[in-house]
Structure formats: C-alpha cells, structure tokens
C-alpha cells in the first residue's frame, strides 16, 4: 500500500516538473524559477523514496509521528506561497489601477488639446 502511495506521489511530482517545463518553454518561468521548482519536486521525490531521512528531524522537533512533521512543514510552505501570491496580486492590482487611471486622465488632456487646436 505504501509503495503504491509512493509511486502515485512520484508520478504526481514528475507531472508537476513537466507542467513547470511547459511554462518554462512558453517563457512564463525564468531559468531561476524553473531551477527552483525542479529542485523542490526532486527533493519531494527523494523524501518520499527515502522517508527515513526525515525521521531524525521529527525526533529533533519533538514530533511524535513523521506524518505530523510533513503536515506542519507542508502547511508552512503553503502559507508562504499564498502570502507571496497575495502580495504579488496586490502589487499588480495597484500597477493596473495606476495605468488605467493615468490612461483616463491622459485621454482627457488629449481631448482638451485637440479642442484648443
């Protein structure tokens, strides 16, 4: 059963690397982005294949089960990603607002100039 779950996860991780590669080929990801995502998924595959590697960590951080450690770190990872996405979205919203508002003001000035001519 465990091997099936491990295989499923490995398949999932390879699929995610492939998806990252598609975005990279479309130039939606930079070299650094692609490298980071590649490392993340390779690291995840290694952890799934060799779970004992994490056991020493779970003891150090006082986690009773290895699963708890994975869940906690997974949660932290998701929070970081979501926060980053939230901040980036807000930045983009502000930039978009600035562009659209400036465009509206510029068009008004153009109309005024055209009337003067």
């Amino acid at each position: 059963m465990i091997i099936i779950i491990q295989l499923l996860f490995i398949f999932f991780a390879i699929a995610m690397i492939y998806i990252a590669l598609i975005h990279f080929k479309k130039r939606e990801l930079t070299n650094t982005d692609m490298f980071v995502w590649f490392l993340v998924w390779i690291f995840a595959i290694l952890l799934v294949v060799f779970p004992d590697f994490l056991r020493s960590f779970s003891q150090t951080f006082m986690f009773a089960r290895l699963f708890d450690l994975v869940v906690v770190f997974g949660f932290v990872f998701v929070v970081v990603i979501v926060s980053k996405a939230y901040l980036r979205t807000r930045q983009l919203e502000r930039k978009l607002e600035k562009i659209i508002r400036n465009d509206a003001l510029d068009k008004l000035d153009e109309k005024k100039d055209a009337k003067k001519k």
Partner: protein
Amino acid sequence: MRIFLVIPGYNEAAHIGNVLKGALKCGLPVVFVDDGSSDKTQKVVKSFKKVVYARHKINLGKGAAIKTGAEIAFKKGAEGVIFMDSDGQHKPSDIGKFVEKLGEGYDVVLGTRNYSSGVPLVRYLGNKLASILVSILFRIYVSDLICGFRATTRNAFNKMELESADYAVETEMVIKIKKKGLSYCEVPVETVYNDTAKGVTILDAVNIFFEVVRWRLTR
C-alpha cells in the same frame, strides 16, 4: 469655494441620463467617470455636452473611479468635490446641503440615508453592524458608513491618500477622517432604490470587513 460634482458609474445607461439632468440643474460643473462600462453609458453621457467625461478602459471599481474623478476636478480648479452615485438613488435636491456644510468649513461632509424611505432591512442591519465595528476599532462613529453621497475639500482629499479601488473606499474615507484629524459632519439625504442587484453585495461586505481589520492591524 469652487465645487465640482463627481459621479462614478458602471453600466448605468438606464439611469445616468436622469441623474445628469438633475445634477446639471444644480449649476455645479459635473465630472462623470465611466468605470469601463460595456453598455450605452458612454453614448448617453456624451450627449450631455456640459459634462466632463473620462473613461477607465476596464472596470476597476468605485474607489478608483472616485479618485480619477476627483483628480480631474482638482486639475480643473475645484476646491471641493461632491460624490454622488450614478444609479439615481440620490436626489440632486440634497446637493445644496453639502455645498452649505463645505462652506461652513467642514473638511468632509457625509450623507446619511434616511432608512424610513425604503432601504432594505438587511442593508440597514449590515450597515449598522459595520458602523459599530468601525467605532470600536477606530473610535469614530458614522451612522451611514457606506453612503456614496459625500463631499470633501481638496486639502482633505489629498490628506486622506485613499488606497481602495473598490467599495471599501467609503469606509476607508471614514477611517482616514479619524486618522488625519479632519473635521466632518453628517447630513440626512433622501434615497430611492432603483436597482437592488447593484451596489454593495454580501461579497463586497466581506471584503470591506477584511480591509477594516487589515487597516486596524497595519496602522
């Protein structure tokens, strides 16, 4: 004091004609900001030659439209602006009250809707809860937090440095009044509900709630 009327609008072809007719009767210069409408709003507004028309290419939200409108008015020499909704829920006959209060020296004048004249109960209760929440968090009580009929002087508007691009702008304005130590007063205004599907929805209310909490935490 030179005062302009700023009207933000999005897909308001059905009402904007009557709103502008009424607004122009007051004798104030009118700026209309079309927030990316896809209906005939542009055509209707452009038929009013005296109205200054500006357009956002895409829909940004009421807050962004208000800021654009105010900026245009100030560029044209306004010392104060009155904001009014474009769905016809506000009566131009109330504009005089705002002019009078700005003349008395208030920085901001907030319209307060008359709840006996058809405001849905859910909106009334939601608005009251929001007012109480803001009064607890920011120590300023305004009886109608999200009424779009309000006025501000140029100096006060610049001091407020509004960030919101959406419906949270009215709440942000109230919070900034407190933070910047601006003087304000409330005036009662009449309300006519033409379209209950528009305006602040439950989702907008949830968004405003989170914004209020964020402003409290990031003060």
